[in-house]
């Protein structure tokens, strides 16, 4: 195939990727987006395989088959709660490929590497390997293999920045003279180390931001590979992914009122936090009372957190909302942008439980409606409903946009115990007069509420009886 035809093939493939993202803007067309993305990728693979640069096929075919064999279970069998760690692992795979290709390119061509190419190659290797180890650490933390709490020591920022400086200096020296090939292994080790060090210090609550950032790095490293190989498709696809990752990290930072620097160098959730209020009394309630309260409501807003999904309570929650809607109660789900462990994660978990997506309302749209809500049911969410974020300047989450559930007429919090949340902060919502605590395992407790609700007489009957 001539280079011209090859380039045209790549162009069509790039257009496919752009349409894939465009169609993803609406759930109705989103699956079409995936299809065209797949077409774009297949086209890119075929065009590459037919190019004259490829003279040997045996290695490629084995690797393609093995890669598919590993990818199919990773795509089809992973539970939805584990999507964040799958994504992290997948980022690690892609970034490893970038790093390895960069490494081989260097050793195949040194010392005759132009300055421009060497700059791109240096950043390709740096970004590729740091994304590789960073994503592996993120995977470990999300999967529960590594410690979830940030690992922090004195002078860590200085150490990390010096590591990065060594990496950038080696790139600079290699650009000045690509013949200094002994610097290249140093660059690789530094990149691998920096990626791990960067993510090790980040706590569980910041995972949505980190995983978005790694998504962006994976894209940028692919774009750098495009510069090295002078391949426009890689540059375009890499730029699309890079901008997506950057945009999502900005959204995540904003949703937590944090800056990039603060996420990367701040070590959130590391400090032992503010005074506990555990001695204060809380009002407790029973599944039976909760059922009565919910049944008498006009509007019920459910605030699900990752705790609900971890307890596999989402199916019981769906049963509850179906039953309430059949009884004429309006039900909405309030979704905070950082609910779950990656951007938008909670929406997927609720969709999996067959909850229609038009009931899922995001933070900005639901907050004005919360004062009209008769009952807010908080299941496994904590920090995103903590009013301290609005007024307590000493709280670590001060300034973070929250769901104003304390504005609702009444609040029922389903919680295993009075333990503090992901970020280790006590929640004053639990001590309000309008709040009732329903202690127990989310799935069991919601199940009991559903049972109690089904025992109640139909709403019309109840209204007629009370009318007499």
């Amino acid at each position, binding site marked *: 195939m001539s280079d011209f035809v090859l380039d045209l093939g790549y162009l069509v493939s*790039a257009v496919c990727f*752009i349409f894939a*993202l*465009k169609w*993803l*803007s609406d*759930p109705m067309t*989103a*699956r079409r*987006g*995936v299809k065209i*993305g797949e077409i774009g*990728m297949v086209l*890119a693979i075929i065009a*590459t395989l037919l190019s004259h640069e490829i003279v*040997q096929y045996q*290695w*490629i075919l084995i*690797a393609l088959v093995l*890669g598919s064999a590993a*990818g199919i279970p*990773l*795509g089809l069998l*992973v539970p939805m709660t584990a999507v964040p760690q799958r*994504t992290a692992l*997948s*980022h690690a*795979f*892609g970034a*490893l*490929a*970038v790093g390895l*290709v960069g*490494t081989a390119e260097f*050793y*195949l061509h040194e010392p005759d590497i*132009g300055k*421009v190419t060497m700059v791109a190659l240096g950043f390709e290797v740096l970004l590729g390997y740091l994304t590789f180890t960073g994503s592996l650490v993120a995977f470990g933390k999300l999967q529960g293999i590594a410690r979830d709490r940030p690992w922090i020591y004195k002078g860590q920022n200085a150490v990390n920045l010096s590591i990065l400086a060594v990496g950038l200096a080696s790139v600079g020296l290699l650009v000045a003279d690509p013949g200094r090939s002994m610097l290249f292994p140093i660059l690789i080790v530094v990149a691998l180390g920096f990626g791990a060090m960067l993510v090790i210090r980040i706590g569980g609550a910041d995972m949505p931001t980190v*995983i*978005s950032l790694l*998504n962006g790095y994976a894209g940028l490293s*692919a774009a750098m590979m*495009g510069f*090295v190989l*002078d391949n426009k498709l*890689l540059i375009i696809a890499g*730029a*699309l*992914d*890079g*901008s*997506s990752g950057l945009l*999502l990290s900005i959204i995540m930072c904003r949703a937590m009122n944090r800056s990039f620097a603060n996420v990367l160098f701040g070590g959130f959730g590391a400090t032992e936090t503010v005074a506990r209020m555990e001695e204060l009394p809380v009002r407790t309630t029973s599944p039976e009372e909760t059922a009565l309260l919910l049944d008498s409501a006009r509007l019920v807003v459910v605030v699900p957190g990752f705790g609900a999904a971890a307890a596999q309570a989402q199916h019981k929650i769906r049963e509850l909302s179906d039953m309430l809607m059949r009884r004429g109660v309006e039900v909405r789900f309030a*979704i905070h*942008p950082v609910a779950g462990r*990656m951007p938008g994660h909670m929406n*997927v978990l609720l969709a999996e439980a067959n909850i229609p997506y*038009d*009931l899922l309302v*995001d933070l900005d749209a639901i907050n004005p409606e919360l004062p009209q809500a008769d009952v807010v049911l908080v299941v496994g969410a904590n920090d995103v409903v903590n009013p301290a974020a609005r007024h307590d300047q000493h709280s670590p989450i001060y300034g973070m946009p929250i769901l104003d559930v304390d504005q609702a007429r009444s609040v029922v919090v389903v919680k295993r115990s009075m333990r503090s949340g992901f970020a280790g902060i006590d929640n004053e919502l639990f001590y309000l007069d309008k709040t009732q605590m329903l202690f127990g395992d989310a799935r069991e407790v919601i199940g009991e509420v559903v049972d109690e609700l089904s025992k109640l007489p139909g709403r019309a009957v109840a209204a007629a009886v009370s009318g007499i």
Partner: protein
Amino acid sequence: MTKEQLEVGLYIFVLASFLGFQVITRIPGLLHTPLMSLTNAISGISLVGSLILAGSGQGALASVFGAIAVFASMTNVVSGFLITDRMLKMFHRRDAQKQRARRPQERAP
């Protein structure tokens, strides 16, 4: 890479980034997880570079590193697309549910 190639590359990179920002800003928070899986699958485009290296016939280093890279990026591509589709399959509207329930009755007579 020559300076001219770099210039063209930078133009493409900057324009594609702007386009990416525009397109992705329109994606609602509802679909941010599928968005990340899809861009993850697309970033598996490093497969193209891996294929070129693995098939270049430039010796053992190129073949071994290239083959590992092809394996890794192919895993990324396949799992990324599959899981994105699996997630999107689950999203449905309230009225769609009702329509699905009604349809068989409409066809019956």
